[in-house]
């Protein structure tokens, strides 16, 4: 029988707090997430558009996304699986941290209403719109070993991209793959979930601090049939709309409330 000591009491208090956070994170918080964005909805007011562009299949792009700007990525053909990395412009040693992102939000299934966290406990991106709801925060993009499906691959693209941002390969963290429906079986085996992608799917990522982004438009390594290299990925960069008191990314639990508060201190 365990002896009640101050140390045991502190451990028990920590365990109770953890279980309470877990219950909220995988219960009430998930239930409060907004629904997926309906296909064809959420039009961007023309006066809010800053720039439009596209990246050919197999290629990459780097960009600056200002705080309060949104990047809409559009999977025109229903076959794109872009991989994305974000750094804070003011100090690129602060970068996207997918481990903290999934750990803090209690889920690897990122969707509308979730956020992408930096390694410094701050919010980099908010998923304000999302018609797909199936993204890969675990496996990442294609790489330089095995049979390359294209002349280019995501690893090579990111090495080139960080060069153009004044960074180098030590600055490449784990990448987020969008429109990439992977499932984890009970034994840990990854499977690709068919039917979870559609033509015209889009995801809108709002910058909560000014960011540098690298986006590689290559097939996901688990995609059953790699699309050919000619499939472009469309972008629209626009000024964020005001969701008023019903921001889709401000409905989640205490953890994300703190992450937003810590982020806002950068701009206080």
């Amino acid at each position: 029988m365990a002896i009640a000591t101050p140390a045991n009491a502190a451990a028990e208090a920590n365990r109770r707090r953890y279980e309470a956070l877990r219950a909220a994170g995988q219960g009430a918080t998930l239930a409060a997430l907004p629904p997926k964005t309906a296909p064809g909805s959420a039009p961007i007011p023309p006066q809010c558009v800053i720039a439009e562009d596209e990246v050919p299949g197999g290629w990459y792009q780097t960009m600056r996304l200002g705080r309060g700007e949104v990047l809409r990525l559009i999977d025109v053909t229903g076959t794109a699986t872009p991989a994305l990395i974000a750094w804070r412009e003011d100090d690129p040693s602060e970068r996207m941290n997918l481990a903290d992102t999934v750990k803090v939000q209690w889920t690897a299934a990122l969707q509308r209403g979730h956020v992408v966290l930096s390694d410094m406990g701050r919010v980099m991106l908010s998923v304000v719109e999302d018609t797909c709801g199936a993204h890969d925060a675990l496996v990442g993009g294609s790489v330089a070993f095995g049979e390359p499906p294209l002349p280019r691959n995501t690893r090579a693209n990111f090495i080139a991209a960080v060069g153009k941002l004044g960074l180098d390969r030590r600055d490449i963290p784990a990448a987020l793959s969008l429109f990439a429906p992977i499932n984890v079986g009970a034994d840990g085996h990854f499977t690709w979930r068919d039917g979870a992608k559609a033509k015209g799917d889009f995801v809108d990522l709002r910058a909560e601090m000014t960011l540098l982004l690298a986006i590689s438009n290559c097939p996901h390594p688990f995609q059953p049939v790699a699309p050919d290299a000619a499939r472009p990925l469309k972008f629209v960069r626009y000024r964020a709309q005001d969701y008023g008191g019903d921001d889709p990314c401000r409905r989640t639990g205490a953890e994300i409330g703190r992450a937003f508060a810590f982020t806002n201190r950068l701009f206080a």
Partner: protein
Amino acid sequence: MSRRDPQLAIYDQVIAAGQPWSRVAKCGQVLRIVDSEGQQAVDALFYCADDVAERYSAQDTLRQQRNAYIGLGTRLMSSEGRAMLTVIGDSCGRHDTSAGCCSCESNAVRFGEPTKYQHACRENFLLELAKHGMGKRDIVANVNFFMNVPIDPVGHFTVVDGISQPGGYVELRAEMDVLCVLSNCPQINNPCNGFNPTPIRVLIWGS
């Protein structure tokens, strides 16, 4: 049980609760990490000793084995797609590489601001990497030996009670000269250390 005799190890060191450690394992050498008292997470980063810009890549490791967990037979891959180490012994059965290391900053987000001033794995990594000319940008997604993080089919991602027993171990054969950097995890806010960090032991055998 592993056949390797501790008496024949060329290196044998206890790492106190909450402390960092680093050493180069030469190609062919075997590194054993022992969870001496059970349920103790050990955060690990690996760098190619000849070029530290080539380092452990969790995503390449998961992709290459098409499985979310690390166990017997897993090849720990580098950012350049090369095998760095192979798991050749494992009494535990499942290790994590998706949950990252704890930090003061993520603790503050998860558990409230007072926990910001508790020791964390990233503090250990910063101090240990500084000995090798590296810093925060070199801290990539790490391995968490003996840490139990099931990911269920709907995506729930949860650090739960460890399944490693007292004296449990993992053995890694270096496939190149590898700088191994460990943090004996000091976390007290989640179950990864049974809410009570304990010592571990590291042994190395020659090739």
